[in-house]
């Protein structure tokens, strides 16, 4: 079990920085269409924010913000969103991960692909951030 870090400067600084890191992770995710960024990078920044809280606040207090059981759930949900998008396009009549067959009405084929890319980037984001926090929690789990 990671204990609370006993230094007020580190504590206050990390508590100020962590929300901005998570917000920047969302920016990197949603701005991935027009600048460098995307699911992998955003997920890594998001996981870094959660890990910073885990390291400085201790596992017990940071679990109130981000429970330990939530990380594997988020990770598997992300991979499920990615793979499920491919299944949906197959049900629409196309190939696997052919976003032109997503069931969006009133959109041109290129805009179908735009939203398809955003959906699978969200899947990658959730998968990477959840699994990275899961690995961190497993490595720092208490020994019996």
């Amino acid at each position: 079990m990671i204990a609370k870090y006993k230094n007020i400067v580190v504590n206050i600084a990390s508590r100020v920085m962590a929300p901005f890191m998570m917000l920047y992770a969302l920016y990197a995710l949603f701005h991935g269409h027009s600048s460098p960024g995307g699911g992998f990078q955003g997920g890594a920044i998001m996981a870094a924010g959660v890990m910073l809280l885990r390291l400085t606040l201790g596992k017990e207090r940071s679990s109130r913000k981000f429970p330990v059981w939530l990380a594997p759930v988020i990770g598997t949900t992300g991979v499920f969103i990615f793979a499920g998008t491919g299944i949906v396009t197959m049900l629409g009549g196309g190939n696997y991960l052919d976003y032109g067959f997503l069931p969006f009405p009133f959109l041109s084929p290129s805009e179908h692909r735009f939203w398809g890319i955003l959906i699978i980037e969200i899947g990658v984001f959730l998968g990477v951030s959840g699994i990275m926090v899961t690995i961190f929690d497993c490595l720092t789990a208490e020994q019996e």
Partner: protein
Amino acid sequence: MKWFPIVVLCLFVGLLFYAEKDLPAFGDIEAPQNTHVSDEYIQRSYEDTHTPEFVTAVLADYRGYDTLGETSVIFTAGVICILLLTGNRKDDSKV
């Protein structure tokens, strides 16, 4: 015996410098990596995917299957960590 790895490393560096002469120049538009499909990606990715950043278009759309594989690699790593590092550990040393 101590000098043997250094000699092998020097020979390998020499081999790499020898092979480097046959590589195309940096930014050569006649090079194979610039004449195959990258032109198509650069020219057509905005019309195909409505996405200004064509790296994202290649990563998530043209090569989406590859990205699914990368994500599942990370997922497998997480599952292996859960299986190996949590739960009851038996003491195998007394078997």
